[in-house]
């Protein structure tokens, strides 16, 4: 059995993982473990930008981190933890400038400063951007710096489970995708930065690899999932493929039209119009379609034609390319057909109350980025805050752990014992899949995606959520009998995708369960049967655990105190 020993393991090589790895590699023997090469990570698909109160534009000169924090908290429908939001927004200008110092090629103003654009839910043009490929350029910049600093990578290694010894994390076991072998990594610190898990939905902007592998491993190790009922549906995903069309398209002045050629946002957000936050625009679009004002009864139009060819080519070239290749539509000439699609998971791996940001209840285990719930986004994330979160907390966690110092390692004997149990379980799992006679994983995966889409979508109600939960319970049973050839393990992507499905079924089940529990409407969680917010009962974070009896819920208070909880209007 091959094994490797490090001081700290970072799982995931998107922006969060890379930024943490860069910080930690300076001092400690650090490994970044990822199922893909770093530049393939989904951070690279982020388009619009990264928020920071730089005030580079005249209209933004009164912007401050505190105003950024206020917009974020309001956008979160007051569910975000205000201390951590404040920290993120104060770090924002520094982290953006740090990216620039690393060489990130931002778009520029005539003054030579980083360009900024308006984004939904923001009081000022605060979103720093690199055309409409901001995530791509930041991901490549961190990859370049990782090359410069000689960061150690294990690419194409798939996280299976965490090794836990005496109630503390001691490493992980993984599958080396190329060799098809199980490989263990030992370390007293593990940071999960595995990204989102939007693929539990059929229609998602997420990469196919966004399957919640860190979430699954943490959940099996007893760590709760927090606020997973809050799922962001992006209002402008390409009709059909659900590829993201950046909010920047509306930030640059794009309009949304229904089949009567009305700018329907005037009904829901007369002031903010198309630049209302994502949850609000997504609901408005669904209502248009439900009330018969959708085009072909299924989508609305995002019209950029009035912006002109020059602006589109300069500011939104990637959007033009996507529209042409994936929908056969040139946005210079005609509107882009769009519909809401799953985009972002506000919830994720639960964090410890009054711990360091990103610390979990399992000693030694930390989590950052989309897989985590810190919670900076509460019930709804503002555009431009996710790239920000990744780098701010990647850097923070690296610095914080170094400050804390390395914990005592578990004894090698104890680690080996825990490891061999996990290995045996995994081997048995593979063996069982090989010998089973049940459904193919694809059937289970597709049913899961359909059921989540239909019943746990933009609008929710009890009977639909119950139906989703019951179906997911059934799918969990069917999955035990799923059939898959596992004897040839080299580059066995079917095996990888089945391991991913194991993680997704857990998260989907937890999402439906938490959504059933939360009998109110807040942010992205919108229930027909409970249309208003209920602060008395639900101004709290949900934490879902798996016990022998099934799923269990606990709650955690929201950290308030900086901004007063108010009604949210735009």
């Amino acid at each position, binding site marked *: 059995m091959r094994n490797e020993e490090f001081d700290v393991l970072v799982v995931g090589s998107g922006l969060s993982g890379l930024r943490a790895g860069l910080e930690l590699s300076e001092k400690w023997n650090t490994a970044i473990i990822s199922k*893909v*090469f770093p*530049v*393939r*990570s*989904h951070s*690279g*698909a982020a388009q619009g930008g990264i928020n920071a109160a730089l005030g580079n534009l005249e209209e933004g000169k009164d912007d401050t981190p505190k105003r950024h924090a206020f917009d974020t908290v309001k956008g979160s429908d007051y569910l975000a933890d205000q201390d951590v939001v404040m920290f993120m927004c104060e770090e924002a*200008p*520094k*982290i*953006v*400038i*740090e990216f*620039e*110092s*690393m*060489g990130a*090629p*931002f778009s*520029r*103003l*005539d*003054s*030579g*400063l*980083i360009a900024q654009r308006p984004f939904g839910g923001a009081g000022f043009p605060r979103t720093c951007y*690199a*055309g409409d*490929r901001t995530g*791509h*350029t930041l991901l490549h910049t961190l990859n*370049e*710096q990782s*090359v*410069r600093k000689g960061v150690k990578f294990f690419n194409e290694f798939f996280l299976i489970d965490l090794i836990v010894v005496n109630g503390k994390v001691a490493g992980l076991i993984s599958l080396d995708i*190329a060799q098809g072998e199980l490989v263990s990594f030992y370390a007293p610190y593990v940071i999960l930065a595995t990204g989102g898990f939007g693929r539990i939905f059929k229609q998602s902007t997420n*990469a*196919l*690899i966004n399957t919640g592998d860190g979430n699954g491993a943490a959940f099996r190790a007893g760590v709760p999932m927090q606020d997973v009922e809050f799922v962001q549906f992006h209002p402008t995903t390409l009709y*059909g*493929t659900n*590829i*993201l069309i950046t909010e920047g398209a509306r930030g640059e002045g794009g309009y949304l039209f229904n089949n009567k050629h009305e700018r329907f946002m005037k009904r829901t957000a007369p002031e903010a119009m198309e630049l209302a936050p994502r949850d609000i625009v997504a609901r408005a679009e669904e209502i248009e379609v439900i009330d018969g004002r959708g085009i072909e009864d299924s989508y609305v139009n995002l019209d950029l034609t009035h912006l002109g060819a020059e602006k589109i080519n300069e500011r939104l070239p*990637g959007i033009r*390319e*996507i529209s042409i*290749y*994936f929908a056969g539509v040139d946005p210079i000439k005609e509107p882009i057909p769009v519909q809401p699609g799953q985009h972002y998971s506000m919830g994720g791996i639960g964090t410890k109350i009054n711990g360091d940001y990103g610390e979990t209840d399992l000693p030694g285990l930390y989590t950052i980025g989309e897989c985590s719930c810190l919670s900076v986004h509460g019930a709804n994330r503002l555009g431009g805050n996710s790239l920000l979160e990744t780098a701010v907390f990647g850097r923070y966690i690296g610095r914080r752990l170094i400050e804390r110092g390395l914990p005592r390692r578990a004894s090698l004997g104890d680690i080996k014992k825990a490891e061999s149990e996990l290995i045996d379980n995994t081997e048995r799992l593979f063996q069982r899949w090989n010998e089973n006679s049940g459904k*193919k*994983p*694809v059937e289970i995966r597709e049913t899961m995606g359909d059921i989540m889409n239909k019943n746990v979508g933009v609008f929710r109600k009890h009977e639909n959520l119950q139906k989703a939960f019951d179906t997911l319970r059934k799918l969990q049973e069917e999955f035990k009998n799923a059939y*898959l*050839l596992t004897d*040839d393990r*080299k*580059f*066995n*992507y*079917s095996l990888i995708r089945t391991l991913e499905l194991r993680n997704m079924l857990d998260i989907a089940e937890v999402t439906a369960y938490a959504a059933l529990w939360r009998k109110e409407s807040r942010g992205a969680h919108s229930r027909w049967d409970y249309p208003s917010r209920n602060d008395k009962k639900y101004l709290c974070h949900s934490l879902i655990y798996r016990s022998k009896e099934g799923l269990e819920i606990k709650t955690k208070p929201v950290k308030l105190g900086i901004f007063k909880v108010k009604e949210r209007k735009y």
Partner: protein
Amino acid sequence: MVKIQKFLVYRNSGNGEVKYEQFEIPVSKGMSVLEALFYIQDHLDSTLAFRYACRGAICGSCGMTIDKVPLLACRVQVSTLKSSKKPINLPEFIFGDHPNWNPETEILIEPLPNMTILKDLVVDMEPFWKFYREIEPYFTREWNGIAPESAQLPEQMKEIERLVYCILCGLCWACPVNAKNSNYLGPAQLAKANRFVRDSRLDEKQQNVILSRILKDDAVPACEKFFICNKVCPKGVMPGTAIKDIRDNWMNKSNI
């Protein structure tokens, strides 16, 4: 009636065993070649190996040779492939015998050219990353978070914008120089070098570090101006033009 599309797919066990296999796939509306490959993996043969990630042409994972043209599988529509325009005068990429391919009716799927094949459509990218690292593609400034950021005018940024779009997919390694010289750094790598040496913010020292590597053998001088890279690049990076820029502006300067 569901339309059925035939695929002829290169298979390689990784142990030297090579064959072409035919699959028939029901085509759904808007189906990409990548989705068709998933259909095979999910329903017909779970062992078919190929890389993927974003399915939106931004991650660079799913490069492969489709009907003899290096392409991103996620960005090619099954229904329009046969009628779409193909780049002309590409070199012929040979992976094995496929005597039965019918170019009119069958979609031929093969791995990327000029790379070692590990399994089916999965190629060894390590040489690609090694040469990427070799050009030292990075800024060496101390990181700092103090405002203001270093200035760059919009027109200075424009000079590198196209080069920044590179997704490191490896399609440009279809270059005939890569075919005959396994030490050639490659078009993507040299375009990346151009992205740095053209950046108004890069200091002279690091610029010289990069130039001193790429002005030597197996780099810029090895380029034979085929411009195949410009034709196959899915992102309009134009690596051949980037190499030309380096050659025209730095090749004959005495201080390097």
